[in-house]
């Protein structure tokens, strides 16, 4: 599981996740995401290369999201594949964190 960050215009931090967000990988992602959430107010999470999302992976997304939103910041999920999108929908996470399938609309959400 790889996690990289990229600074975009407008003070947006793009977090790129690659691989499986499962029981094995999620604790490391959780740690890193919470560190990012502690210092950033606009976070775009790129899920295009996430092939699996389990409940531990959801935790790694929700905990930092609540921290960012609690400070008045914004976090947006972008580009989940069909199956990952279904997990986000079934779990109700998409009601807590906006999910966008196009980069343009994801970026526009920060305006």
């Amino acid at each position, binding site marked *: 599981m790889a996690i990289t960050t990229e600074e975009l215009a407008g003070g947006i931090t793009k977090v790129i996740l690659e691989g499986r967000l*499962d*029981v094995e990988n999620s604790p490391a992602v959780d740690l890193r995401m919470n560190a990012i959430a502690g210092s950033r107010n606009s976070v775009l999470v790129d899920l295009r290369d996430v092939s*699996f999302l389990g*409940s531990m992976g959801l935790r790694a997304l929700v905990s930092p999201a609540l921290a960012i939103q609690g400070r008045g910041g914004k976090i947006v999920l972008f580009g989940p594949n069909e*199956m990952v999108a279904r997990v986000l929908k079934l779990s109700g996470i998409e009601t807590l964190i906006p999910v966008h399938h196009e980069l343009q609309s994801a970026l526009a959400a920060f305006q």
Partner: protein
Amino acid sequence: MTGRETDQAEDRLFLRSQLSDIAQIPPWIESLASRYAIPENIGFAINLCLEEAVSNITRHGYGADSDGSVIVRFTTPKQELFVFIVEDDAQHFNPLDVLTPNTRGKLGGRRPGHSLPSPFRRQARIRTDAHR
């Protein structure tokens, strides 16, 4: 003992109650998917259910015991019907024994939390979808 076993009747995956053993599930599902033509979305859902079930057994059922046994059995009694049975010797847990009236209400209303809905509910959904 951990690992896989196959005979004519069923496939079995033997795991110990360690979170690291859960990494054996995806390649096992991939192998079953290629042999039994399990569609990708169904394979994904099976992974989701098994990861949830086995991690709950390991973390909550066995707790500190890292040498407990978890066996996942797979059979396909008829075409496009895939049955997975998870067996363990962990202590029993019935949520209805410990829920207060307050938490019953919360669960009944499905308030969003940090985890997925019950895997049993999800299993029911998968079964429905697989037969559409």
